[in-house]
């Protein structure tokens, strides 16, 4: 009987620590979820004179994938986007983050270009606006321009299949 309290405390502590081990401290929840997407006003990678803006993308859900040629983990997820882009479900916008234009183009030539438009963020200032802190990051934005989902780190094929595609389907059927 007298050991019941310490035992109970131990079990409670063990459960909390166990939960703590399962959490990933790198996954900081984005403050943009269910809020309007920040501005994306940038020149495009392939044509400096052309610019992209949020208003061009209104009316349809879209994916924003933040990547860079220097980012090793981006290679890991790239083929998933390449195969996704073949299905042509929604616009896939790339945000090329703090990269050299030539390196970025060479990288796409080597691995394939799944993006409909690529915004070129040399200074990383748009990255700050979007709260990007580790490439790759992937956002899903709905037809009204509201951020619905953010994924930090490389997208796995199961994340694509089980989270992003179902989310896009529900966004499209609502819209």
């Amino acid at each position, binding site marked *: 009987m007298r050991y019941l309290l310490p035992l109970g405390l131990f079990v409670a502590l063990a459960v909390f620590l166990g939960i703590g081990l399962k959490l990933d*401290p790198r996954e*900081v*929840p984005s*403050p943009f979820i269910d809020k309007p997407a920040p501005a994306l006003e940038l020149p495009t990678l392939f044509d400096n004179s052309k610019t992209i803006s949020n208003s061009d993308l209104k009316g349809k859900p879209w994916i924003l994938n933040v990547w860079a040629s220097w980012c*090793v983990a981006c290679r890991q997820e790239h083929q998933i986007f390449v195969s996704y882009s073949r299905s042509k479900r929604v616009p896939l916008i790339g945000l090329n983050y703090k990269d050299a234009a030539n390196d970025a183009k060479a990288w796409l030539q080597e691995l394939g270009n799944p993006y409909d438009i690529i915004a070129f963020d040399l200074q*990383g200032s748009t990255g700050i606006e*979007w*709260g990007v*802190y*580790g490439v790759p990051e992937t956002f899903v934005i709905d037809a009204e321009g509201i951020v619905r989902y953010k994924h930090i780190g490389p997208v796995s094929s199961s994340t694509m299949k089980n989270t992003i595609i179902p989310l896009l389907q529900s966004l499209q059927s609502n819209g």
Partner: protein
Amino acid sequence: MRSIIFTIIFCIMQPLQAAIESRVFENPVYESRYYQMIDKLRCLVCQNQNLADSNSELARDLRDKTYELIAGGATNNEISEFMVTRYGQFVLYEPPVNRHTLILWGAPVVFAIIGIFVFVRVSRKSKNTTLLTVDANHVAQARDLLKDKSNN
């Protein structure tokens, strides 16, 4: 996994080559506020470092941003707000008291109260038991000893 290893390598490697940039301030108040702010904001890449200590590229960009905002006349609250709207509450090393952080701020007080309560109970209990265990013989013996001492 690879990205984690690279992050670790970069966190260790960068201090070897990069030192904190020097800044020019038009007024000393701005300067002290700048150092105060980069001390209070967390770098999200090397999560247990603040912007002042971290040499990651993001920390450098955010130091630039902080400098820019201060030079543009933003108050400390406006800078915190700027960071929080983009990176979330996590960016603040000292989270504000609100609904979500109630447990965080309240728990130490609750634990202190529990501690005081337990301490009082335990010390009271031990006082009672010592009083009870001293039996009459021992008291008499002690009295005799004291008497001997005073006679000498």
